[in-house]
């Protein structure tokens, strides 16, 4: 695993997220579930807690639009990008609305997998060179029902936020 230069991380364990808009490829409920499940990937192994808000500015603003100085490139190629923890645009995750996202089908890009990777960046992880790690930069299909966070990613996120404490 690796972290960004300067090892930026959130200074609180209580983070908010907001889904600003939706992809037409999936139902609203499927997008909501995919995002929630993707955040829980990280919450399960750290003390981090995520709360959804529906208005105002969240720590992690999620949109299907690049919304910044880094345009996307049409279908395939770049699927999404996200910013390391910091105020304003930091933590935000943008998904390429030209991609075809799916809930669990391999006939498209599984939004849960792409989002879980991007939220790794939102929390402070950079790309890993370990094949099979969630933070490896290229997309690889895994059934969302069988997904478990690889150990490289667990070590990475716990190096920033510590372990999940069970009381």
């Amino acid at each position, binding site marked *: 695993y690796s972290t960004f230069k300067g090892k930026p991380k959130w200074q609180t364990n209580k983070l908010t997220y907001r889904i600003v808009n939706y992809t037409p490829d999936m139902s609203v409920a499927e997008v909501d579930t995919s995002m929630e499940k993707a955040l829980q990937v990280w919450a399960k192994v750290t003390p981090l807690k995520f709360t959804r808000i529906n208005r105002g500015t969240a720590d992690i603003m999620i949109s299907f639009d690049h919304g910044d100085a880094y345009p996307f490139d049409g279908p395939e190629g*770049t*699927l999404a*990008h*996200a910013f390391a923890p910091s105020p304003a645009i930091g933590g935000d995750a943008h998904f390429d609305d030209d991609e075809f996202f799916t809930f669990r089908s391999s006939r498209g890009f599984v939004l849960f997998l*792409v989002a879980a*990777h991007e939220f790794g960046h939102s929390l402070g992880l950079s*790309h890993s060179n370990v094949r099979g790690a969630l933070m490896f930069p*290229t997309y690889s299909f895994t059934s969302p029902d069988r997904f478990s966070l690889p150990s490289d990613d667990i070590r990475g996120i716990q190096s920033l936020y510590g372990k999940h404490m069970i009381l």
Partner: protein
Amino acid sequence: GPISQPSDKDEATHYLKSFYNLTDLTDETTAVRREASQMTEKLKEMQKFFGFKVTGKLDKETMEMMKKPRCGVPDVAA
């Protein structure tokens, strides 16, 4: 062996600019030579990251990785 089609080179240049901080060179007198040198170094950097044989050449394995769908965050810290 190395791939020399212009489209692959263009694609590789775009990829390395996006994810490995390959920069445009403006000094025309030495730009071509320096661009080639920088391209080699960036290819080496990419090949090292992905665990490929580090040649600095645009071989099939490297090109295939460049064509895969991926995250838009650079592999090297900006």
